[in-house]
């Protein structure tokens, strides 16, 4: 029972981090109808900045620069590539983002090499005990930070002019333009927010118990894709629920790996994708989505 609670708590925390990534993925899709396969490289870029700078300027300043850096990379991708690519189909743009992802990831992994970079976070490997249940402090902080960021995002999405412009554009771009909404700005804002959230996610994907940032960090980030897709690509609620489902499933499956040996080793890593496939078979638009993937 204790194991189960520990795994569940960890799963929720990991899920909240996936939700941060999925949220960025979903708002880019809402604002531009582009499935952004470069998301994992945005995350890697933000994490890389933090890893490189923390020893010289301190963790918090490095985190701030990492967030700003990934936001800037997002804006640049939007401004230089997505906006200018005069293609008729959003599927083509999605493929363009795959290209961007390959370029960015290749360059970053070349710089990372075979190292495992620490991010210099202040939580280290302390463990918090709640009764018999022990949870890494990093997991508690991750959950708290993700909850705050997600709440702030949802409030802004609901109540600010930026949020209204974003939702109007997502629902009907032409009519939003008739209201004077500038789609380019909305889209840039979405990429910037997505980059910023991805950096925070990078931080919590790389802290204890993970050894640090290395070339496999993008694989961890990839698990947020099934989270976004199973929740419904155009639903912020879906991103949150999807993130939690994936996080909890993955953690439980890994935790009980030995009891699930008949499913083969490494079931925790494939579980997110299995869950996604099952959900899509039942609900092609995802749990909360309105658009089927066939249209993407």
């Amino acid at each position, binding site marked *: 029972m204790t194991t189960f609670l520990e795994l569940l708590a960890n799963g929720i925390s990991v899920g909240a981090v996936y939700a941060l990534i999925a949220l960025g993925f979903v708002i880019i899709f809402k604002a531009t109808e582009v499935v952004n396969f470069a998301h994992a490289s945005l995350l890697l870029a933000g994490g890389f900045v933090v890893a490189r700078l923390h020893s010289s300027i301190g963790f918090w300043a490095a985190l701030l620069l990492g967030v700003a850096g990934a936001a800037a990379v997002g804006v640049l991708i939007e401004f230089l590539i997505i906006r200018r690519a005069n293609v008729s189909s959003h599927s083509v743009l999605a493929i363009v983002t795959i290209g961007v992802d390959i370029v960015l990831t290749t360059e970053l992994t070349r710089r990372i090499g075979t190292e495992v970079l620490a991010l210099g976070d202040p939580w280290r490997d302390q463990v918090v005990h709640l009764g018999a249940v022990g949870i890494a402090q990093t997991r508690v902080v991750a959950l708290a930070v993700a909850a705050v960021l997600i709440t702030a995002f949802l409030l802004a999405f609901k109540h600010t*002019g930026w949020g*209204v412009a974003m*939702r*109007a554009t997502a*629902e009907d771009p032409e*009519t939003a333009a*008739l*209201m*004077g909404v500038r789609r380019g700005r909305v889209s840039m804002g979405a990429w910037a927010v997505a980059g910023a959230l991805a950096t925070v996610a990078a931080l919590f994907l790389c802290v204890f118990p993970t050894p640090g940032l290395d070339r496999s960090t993008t694989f961890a980030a990839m698990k947020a894709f099934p989270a976004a897709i199973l929740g419904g690509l155009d639903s912020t609620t879906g991103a949150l629920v999807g993130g939690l489902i994936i996080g909890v499933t993955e953690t439980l499956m890994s935790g009980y790996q030995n009891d699930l040996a008949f499913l083969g080793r490494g079931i925790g890593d494939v579980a997110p994708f299995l869950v996604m496939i099952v959900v899509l078979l039942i609900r092609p638009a995802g749990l909360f989505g309105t658009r089927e993937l066939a249209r993407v």
Partner: protein
Amino acid sequence: MDVHAPPPPEDPGLVVRDLAVNYGPVTALRGISLSVPRGSIVAVLGGNGAGKSTLLRAVSGTLRFHRGGITAGEIVFGRTRLSGTAASAVVARGVVQVPEGRRVFARMTVEENLRAGSLGARDRRAAAGARERVHTLFPVLAERARQRAGLLSGGEQQMLAIGRALMARPAMLLLDEPTLGLAPMMAARIAETVREINAQGTTVLLVEQNAAMALSLASQAYVLEVGEVALSGPAADLARSDEVRRRYLGIEDDRAASPAGASAGRPALARWSA
């Protein structure tokens, strides 16, 4: 629309000169010219596919959403050129469109729709005043503020679409078939509102298939046929012309001919010959 600074008399309002528009290989407008003087209501009539919506898209700068573009001519409002500018710049100049089919943001509340309307306004601080005006014109929008716009009736959605456009405090309103699909009572209500908005100082370009309604509101009218101006003139004259009566008002020639020698009383209209 600003009472304290009336537009100088030489201000021509909206002027469209020799406008031609293509959607890829399809030509939708073939060099049309029209003008909408400040403070007036001008109607544009025409059947399906005549190019009415295309004209409004060209003014609002949204042709690119339909893979269309202006191939010749220009659009000027006041002393600034609208053709070639972005949609947001057109709104910022005070020219705001209520699109065909209302196009309210169905997943957003009534209040949020109005807020969306103020996003591109010239003066966003004036939003509170604009909201007041909209709520006075359409009290139902105040009552339903927190309801999803998609749940409103067709007539209410049309009111919302007009109210949303008014949130930008437009100097000029472009209306694309505002009575489409509405019951006669509601259509009359909308017509009355258009008259009132105009009386408050907003110039109106009204696109309609409901010719009777449009001609009763407008001072000038243009009839579009397959991308060209087929007829134009004072609205009252058009309403009396045989051609318009037959084609757009559904009145047969022989029934329309009155014993009082109608042909003599019927004005000569400029028939646009290609």
